[in-house]
């Protein structure tokens, strides 16, 4: 028998006893729905957890420092490092090498300098921090007022709400869209023959008068500069920035802009001691594509001779937890489907008994045992398919209800609502396929029983 004939006959037979087959199909759909609801709850919770972790910026970031600097984070490591003065420095080539490591999405210097915002004739002191474009994903920007930077070197600024209040106590939001002036110190390298270059020397700048004292002369001057910036946004709290070396940043600039402005940092003092003239970084922030790869990236950077710091791979144990959770949810969900399987067997066995005569007739007019078996299989499969589709719809409704319920609960506790239940497309396909497979397995016994019926016995005239 051809496939379409098989399907047509199967559906026609199912429609013969609508109530019974309908109830069985609903039974399957309840089973599928509970499975889908449970598994997608697992998926949703996992995604929620991952999203929260990624949003904090803690789990995909490695902070890199040179072993020459900042000793004391890890005593054991410090003691093992015999000649820290020979350790590599965080210079441009090192940064470049890290950028090219596998799984690394960006390497940004940590920039934190003192600055002043001049607005309406008043000056306000604060720490300036450079932010990469990827910081947009950080949860600190979840309730951003205004906009994020339009580009990595846009002349724009985002302010911390407290700082904005300091500038405009009445309505800090008014600041958005306005232009302010940033006053900062620019680092200007001194050539060994700087005097002949005729660069103006400012009083009180380090290195100002000492560069000609010896042959080892290297240094820079810090020059007061101003830069006009447009306020584009205000945030409540500072994004997770790792070392928190000095103080809270209150003024945020696109990181490329801060680099372009060549702002003088505390660490410049350190590099001036080191000599050599090249630009070095105190800390590099390495962002990793997937929190699971942090350890790997950290390893690679350690091998380059740098000190690294990251919140250790918390995601690994998290993933193990969710695998177990999914398993449990799956088992619970499957219970209803197991009951539904029994219902299919029961329904089909009943159908075989009821249709003994019909099966005999079909065999008498040319149906093979295989045709009969396939027909019952097709009926089981069709119930599985319809049950699966219905179950997805039902599961979807249950999931929506869970989301609405948790939304109300979270709202009551003054928390932003979260989607704890997510139905991924693969689960839709998998659930329907699973439902069909389970139904076919349930159809095995009834189908072979139908195929074995003896037409002579069933056709005896009663």
């Amino acid at each position, binding site marked *: 028998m051809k496939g379409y004939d098989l399907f047509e006959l199967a559906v*026609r037979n199912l429609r013969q006893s609508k109530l019974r087959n309908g109830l069985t199909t609903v039974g399957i759909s309840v089973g599928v729905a509970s499975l889908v609801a449970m598994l997608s709850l697992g998926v949703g919770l996992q995604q929620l957890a991952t999203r929260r972790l990624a949003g904090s910026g803690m789990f995909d970031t490695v902070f890199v420092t040179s072993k020459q600097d900042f000793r004391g984070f890890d005593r054991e490591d410090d003691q093992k490092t015999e000649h820290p003065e020979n350790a590599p420095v965080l210079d441009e080539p090192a940064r470049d090498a890290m950028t090219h490591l596998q799984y690394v999405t960006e390497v940004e210097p940590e920039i934190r300098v003192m600055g002043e915002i001049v607005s309406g004739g008043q000056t306000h002191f604060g720490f300036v921090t450079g932010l990469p474009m990827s910081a947009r994903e950080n949860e600190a920007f979840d309730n951003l007022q205004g906009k994020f930077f339009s580009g990595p070197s846009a002349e724009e600024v985002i302010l911390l709400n407290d700082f904005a209040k300091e500038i405009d106590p009445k309505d800090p939001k008014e600041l958005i869209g306005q232009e302010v002036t940033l006053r900062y110190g620019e680092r200007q390298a001194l050539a060994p023959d700087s005097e002949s270059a005729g660069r103006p020397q400012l009083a009180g700048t380090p290195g100002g008068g000492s560069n000609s004292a010896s042959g080892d002369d290297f240094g820079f001057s810090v020059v007061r500069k101003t830069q006009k910036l447009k306020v584009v946004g205000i945030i409540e709290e500072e994004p997770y920035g790792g070392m928190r070396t000095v103080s809270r940043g209150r003024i945020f600039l696109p990181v490329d802009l801060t680099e372009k402005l060549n702002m003088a940092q505390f660490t410049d003092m350190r590099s001036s001691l080191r000599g050599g003239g090249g630009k070095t970084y105190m800390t590099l922030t390495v962002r990793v594509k997937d929190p699971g790869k942090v350890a790997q990236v950290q390893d690679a950077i350690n091998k380059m001779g740098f000190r690294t710091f990251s919140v250790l791979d918390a995601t690994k144990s998290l993933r193990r937890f969710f695998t177990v959770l999914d398993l449990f949810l799956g088992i619970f969900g499957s219970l209803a489907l197991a009951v539904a399987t029994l219902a299919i067997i029961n329904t089909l066995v009943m159908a075989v008994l009821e249709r003994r005569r019909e099966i005999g007739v079909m065999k008498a007019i*040319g149906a093979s045992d295989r045709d009969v078996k396939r027909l019952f299989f097709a009926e089981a499969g069709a119930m599985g398919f319809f049950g699966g589709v219905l179950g997805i719809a039902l599961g979807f409704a249950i999931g929506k209800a869970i989301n609405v319920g948790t939304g109300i609960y979270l709202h009551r506790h003054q928390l932003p609502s979260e989607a704890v239940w997510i139905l991924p497309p693969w689960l839709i396909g998998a659930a329907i396929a699973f439902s069909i497979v389970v139904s076919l397995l349930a159809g095995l016994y009834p189908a072979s029983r139908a195929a074995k019926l003896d*037409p002579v016995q069933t056709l005896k005239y009663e």
Partner: protein
Amino acid sequence: MDSVPSSRVPPAVQTANVCRYYPMGGGIIRAVDGISLTIERGEFVALLGQSGSGKSTLLNLLAGLDRPSSGSVTVQGRDLAKMSSEELAAYRRNDVGMVFQAFHLIPSMTITENVELPMRFAEVDRAERGQRVRESLEQVGLGKRLEHRPSELSGGEQQRVSLARALANRPSLLLADEPTGNLDSRTGEDILNLIRDLSLSLGMTVVMVTHERALAERFAQRLVFLGDGKLLSQEALA
């Protein structure tokens, strides 16, 4: 053994000492007990006998619905006893048409669908089926109420549908088990007339089981009498 000497054309049906035993309680029922019978192509043969004489069992053996305990059943040179169940199904599908006393139409299907059913098993093209359904129904004289269910038809009409279904795959052998048993005598005669006409026009071999000797004498070319699973006598009619 009165086996007919083989002519150039093999006979339509030939049984050689065919037996069918059933275990029953402690003993054995010999439903068919060593019957040897030859039926020529295009012949209309009636099997007569009391109930329990083994005529229906013999018919089932010819239909390939049942397998002999011993002996052979050869239809157009092929031994049914040696066929697999798949092959027997193909044989029933392509070479045999069956008509029953109880009609055995599928109640949930319309007339058209009932006649179409054997063609589904034979994997006849969908496009061709409609044509062949109409053809078969015309042959049995049914042209109306084709979308009705069997229960909405009279007994005679139902038997015509059943006959049309038997003809759907253009069989060479028509097996009828008490085809008039559920019909009044006039309708029964109509059906037998129809069967005889079809046999003549299509060259189809007919084996009919009946216990009504008068009817059999009027339509069949040969009467075969069975009793206790054995062939008692044969009678050729003009």
